[in-house]
């Protein structure tokens, strides 16, 4: 039975080999070679000039992940406690933006955040900008929101929040209610039930949520280009430029990708250590 079914796995193995393993091998080869194909480590030594970009990318991704967690956990928790109908509606609302194209969604934020965009018009109409000028003695006509690091983080949070909510929600909703009753029975009030039972048991969901938000955030380039106006170069932008932009240098691009990948994998392994004892694996 098992052997008969195993041949159906063959296409999958081939697929993995061609589209997952081969590119990684190619990347490693590129990263360690010069333009003429000879072995070199110079790609890595050159990278030190981009330390700032590394720092910024990881900083923004961490901020975005933390915000996603702070927003996502309470939403998941409250959702899981509500009735089945509420849960369905909330789930649709959370998934709804994801039915739209990623770029379109992000573009729409541009029209909202622009200097004469929707949000600034709204602030103007309620007199918030005048109030600000009166208090601080300034003469601004709008709040600058586009092309800031804040806008980039907002874009990340907006796009990746569902990836935080879904895993946490699915863990909490499956939590055995009798454990909560048992804790209550042993004298725990609501706060303590949450701290000692619900929270630790939902950690696997939190860990996979963090992974699913952090990894795309740290490697994004579209969000930073659209909402950051290209002023805040992130790792994703840097890599893209080495392959498609003017600074054509695929060897360097491969080296940066490799280093980023190694850092991310190490981060995830450390996280996994935290979640040890929980049955659910965090690695994607």
């Amino acid at each position, binding site marked *: 039975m098992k052997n008969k079914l195993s041949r159906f796995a063959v296409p999958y193995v081939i697929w993995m080999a061609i589209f997952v393993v081969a590119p990684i091998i190619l990347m490693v080869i590129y990263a360690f070679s010069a333009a003429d194909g000879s072995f070199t480590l110079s790609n890595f030594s050159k990278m030190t000039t981009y330390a700032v970009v590394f720092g910024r990318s990881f900083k923004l991704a961490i901020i975005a992940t933390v915000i996603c967690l702070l927003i996502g956990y309470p939403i998941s928790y409250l959702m899981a406690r509500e009735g089945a109908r509420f849960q369905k509606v909330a789930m649709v609302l959370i998934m709804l933006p994801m039915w739209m194209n990623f770029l379109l969604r992000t573009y729409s934020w541009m029209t909202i955040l622009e200097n004469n965009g929707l949000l600034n018009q709204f602030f103007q109409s309620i007199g918030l900008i005048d109030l600000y000028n009166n208090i601080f003695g300034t003469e601004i006509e709008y709040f600058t929101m586009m092309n800031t690091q804040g806008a980039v983080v907002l874009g990340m949070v907006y796009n990746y929040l569902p990836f935080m909510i879904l895993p946490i929600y699915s863990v909490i909703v499956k939590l055995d209610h009798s454990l909560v009753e048992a804790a209550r*029975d042993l004298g725990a009030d609501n706060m303590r039930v949450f701290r000692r039972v619900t929270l630790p048991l939902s950690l696997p969901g939190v860990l996979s949520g963090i992974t699913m938000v952090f990894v795309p955030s740290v490697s994004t380039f579209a969000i930073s280009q659209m909402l950051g106006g290209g002023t805040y170069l992130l790792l994703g932008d840097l890599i893209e430029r080495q392959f498609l932009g003017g600074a054509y240098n695929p060897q360097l691009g491969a080296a940066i990708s490799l280093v980023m990948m190694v850092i991310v994998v190490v981060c995830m392994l450390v996280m996994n250590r935290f979640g040890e004892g929980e049955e659910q694996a965090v690695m994607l």
Partner: protein
Amino acid sequence: MSKELIRLVDCVMAFDEEVVLNDINLCINDREFLTLLGPSGCGKTTTLRLIGGFQKPTSGDVLFNGVRVNDVPPHKREVNTVFQKYALFPHLNVYENVAFGLRIPKKGEHGKKIKLSEQEIDARVTEMLRVVNLTGFEKRSVSALSGGQQQRVAIARALVNRPKVLLLDEPLGALDLRLRKDMQIELKRIQQETGITFIYVTHDQEEALAMSDTIVVMDAGRILQIGTPTDIYNEPENAFVADFIGESNIIDGIMREDGVVEIFNRRFKCLDSGFDKDEPVDVVIRPEDVDIVAEDQGQLKGTVTNVTFKGMQYDIIVDFYGFKWLIQTTDLSPVGSRIGIKIDPDGFHVMKKSEYSGMFGDYSSYSEEYDEIGDASLELVEEDAGDEE
């Protein structure tokens, strides 16, 4: 003498118009081992949850020491529960599961929160693990334990808090027969050793008879009878109780006068009295109270239709005038043989007619009945879980 600890007064429980508990009045004494016994869906788990504080009665009161506690949440009651599926915390090891309740600061006499020291927690957890025979298991993960061990952790986790009352919801349901028998003795020993009041829910009548000081028989959300195991067995209130507790032949009869009952148009001496003259009644005759004699010496004569070897005795089915009885005997009477029986006056138990009359106590469909009993215990686990909401 023992004093009253918990009282349920006129408790009614309804979910969406469906009445689950109907007018429950029950008094539980200090240091008592009380068992709520009944088939699945009879309301025994719901009664337990009222006492535990997980549910509020739709009407009626729950009193602890005479004080109304309807609105007191579970964590403020001096009650701990051993849950049906144990509900051990999977993220904590055995030690931490047992220590869970001890690590929570409790309100002392002056309203100040008292936190136990690590040494005291350690001493109490270690002592409790000794009581339940789990010394050396402290660091084990609870998921690595067998069913019986998990069950003992659940008991230790509840008992270590030294509650006034321990609620046990079918705690032995998931164990195999052998282990269940051992745990029954173990539980009874723990109860006597600690002097804690046990309120025990089960659908297993043998378990109830073996362990309890008091048995409360329930059906369809009502209490049918409260009494000691011997009372319940020897003086069942109606056909349901007689059938549920032990094996019984239940026969239509007529009470001719005090001490004389008529079945199959024959009059027998019995010890019951207090019925109207010629009142129709249900008569219970336990299978072990029947003596088999030669056909010509019998008060009643019948034909053996079925014999089952049970190890200690034979269960034989005998046809008397079209009505099949179960008789337990150590002497083999082969199928087809004619036998006579004798019953002493104390072998008859006469009950007033009730809504349960005619529903139980006939062994015409002997084998099928055994199948049903088997099914009922299987269904029970799912059904009682549904009770929660």
